[in-house]
């Protein structure tokens, strides 16, 4: 059974009374264990697609089945539960809670899941991203790359079905970006399903499959060989 099935998904935003289409019929299937890179110029609909995949937003039309279940009809509380247990989010701007130690940031999803042995699990997740020694550090005391690794620890701590990473290297220098990418490859090796949105063809090249968006549609969807020389398509 596919993990994710989007069928003719449309999304229309209302802006000052104007209807702005962001997705114009997207059909996409992702199987468990895949490592998918989504590319496309700004406004092509890739972020909207990510938000819908992560149950942060609902499609205007079409169906979205997650593990065979239609989630378009689910209530807010059920969607919150899905975000909590089935998805791990990584954002370009890290989005860690300020004034909150790294380990407590990692504990956050478990707080909402009602998990009681949060501390050991959070420390294990930090260990997995190589930051156990920084558990008590505040986000402001961590480098950008370290903050992003904390975000990954938070994303994987609930053992989700899929990690959604929206421009995870967008704010990082190439060294830190390299660390993040090898982390993602390691996760992928361990069988984690990953969807990665990026502008950067070199970053996208780490994935096994490339989906290209343009004007709210998928214009290209092809497997990537291991580490090709160059990946085509406009970066914007």
């Amino acid at each position, binding site marked *: 059974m596919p993990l994710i099935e989007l069928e003719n998904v449309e999304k229309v935003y209302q802006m000052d009374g104007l209807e702005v289409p962001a997705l114009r019929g997207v059909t996409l299937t992702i199987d468990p264990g895949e490592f998918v890179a989504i590319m496309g110029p700004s406004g092509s609909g890739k972020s909207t697609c990510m*938000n819908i995949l*992560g149950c*942060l*937003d609902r499609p205007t039309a079409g169906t979205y089945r997650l593990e065979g279940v239609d989630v378009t009809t689910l209530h*807010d*509380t059920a969607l*919150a*539960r899905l*975000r*909590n*247990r089935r998805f791990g*989010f990584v*954002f370009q701007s890290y*989005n*860690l*809670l*300020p*004034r*909150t130690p790294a380990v407590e940031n990692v504990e*956050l*999803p478990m*707080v*909402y*899941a*009602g998990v009681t042995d949060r501390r050991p699990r959070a420390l294990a997740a930090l260990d997995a991203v190589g930051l156990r020694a920084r558990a008590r550090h505040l986000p402001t005391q961590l480098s950008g790359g370290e903050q992003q690794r904390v975000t990954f620890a*938070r994303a994987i701590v*609930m053992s989700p079905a899929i990690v959604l990473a929206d421009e995870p290297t967008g704010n990082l220098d190439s060294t830190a970006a390299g660390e993040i990418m090898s982390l993602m490859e390691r996760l992928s090796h361990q069988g984690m399903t990953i969807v990665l949105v990026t502008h950067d063809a070199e970053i996208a090249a780490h994935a096994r499959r490339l989906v290209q968006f343009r004007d709210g549609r998928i214009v290209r969807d092809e497997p990537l060989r291991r580490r090709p020389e160059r990946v085509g398509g406009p970066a914007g």
Partner: protein
Amino acid sequence: MNLAVTVRIAWRAIVANPLRSLLTMLGVIIGVGAVVAMVAIGQGARQAITEQVESLGSNLLTVFAGTQQFGGIATTGQVRTLTLEDAEAIQEEVPNVTGVSAELQRPAQVVFREQNVYTQVSAVTPQFPAVRNFHPAAGSFISDADMRRRAKVAVLGQTVAGELFPDTDPLGQQIKIRGVTFTVIGVMEPKGATGFFDRDDVVFVPLTTAQRRLFGIDYVRTIYVQVTSPDAMPDAQTGLGDLLRQRHRLGPTRDDDFSVRSQADVLQAFTGVSRTMTLLLGGIAAVSLIVGGIGIMNIMLVSVTERTREIGIRKAVGARMRDILVQFLIESVALSVSGGIVGILLGVVGSRLITRLAGWATLISPQAVLLAFSFAVAVGVFFGLYPAQRAARLDPIEALRHE
């Protein structure tokens, strides 16, 4: 979501902005402090009045001239229906009466050499100390002989004695009341300033002397009647009522031209007045609590806006609307409860200070503290609900994009 974690989150948000949190709490602090202090003053006054009324002597009936009433208390004014002869008749004819004190008060200037005070001249009979439980500490009180001779003798209250005779013994000294010379024969024991008036600021003279030589009148204002026991009070009350109607020649269709109050009635009237005062002061304080609540609501709305991104993060990792609602609600309640606790401390300290500096009796009642505290909690919930709902309803994507 676990309550302890939520409380810790709320606490962290509060201490992250200490000055702002303090200023926000200030409204509640002042409100709760005011409620506690105001009620303490009201209750203290009530207790002081109760003690004072009880100290006047139990089993006491009070006969006022006239029947006008204000809150259960007869306001006698210039009604001239009661006389010394009425008092003597009550003493002789009403059963179970152990003592009768007829009294008349007028303010007057009292002079000793260069010293002069404006005080209350209380014209009384020799039975006054026994009936009113107020005795001379030095010298003697007015005697029956003084009454008969209309002797120009005076007994001073402590305050007057202290003001007129700061360093001399007042006994045997000559003072002038309204230009008439009196000899000081005694000084009363101190009764203290319970409630709002000083019971030692008084000069006692024989009733007959005052009527003839000072004021030129033949009536009295009040007759205090001491009865043997509380059980005998109702009979004595009807007995003296009948006697006075008969003496005043009131036909069956005429209303009484006097009114009789027992100590219980007086107490009840005073209690009613002080309860009204307590309610009034408490009401004013409650208004300031509501203002404090609006302050909390204001700052919570600011906080929701400032922390929009945090709300987005929480929603992204799985917080339900209810989790966010509870989080912000607990934060506003934590603000109001912290304010409430500080306010209670402030109110208690404030009441102590009032007692020490102004000499007013105050009484901190647990009910008032509990009431103020629950009100603070209610304010936190009520005024925190709208901002918390706003936070809970934020769209996660919008919230995450918020700068």
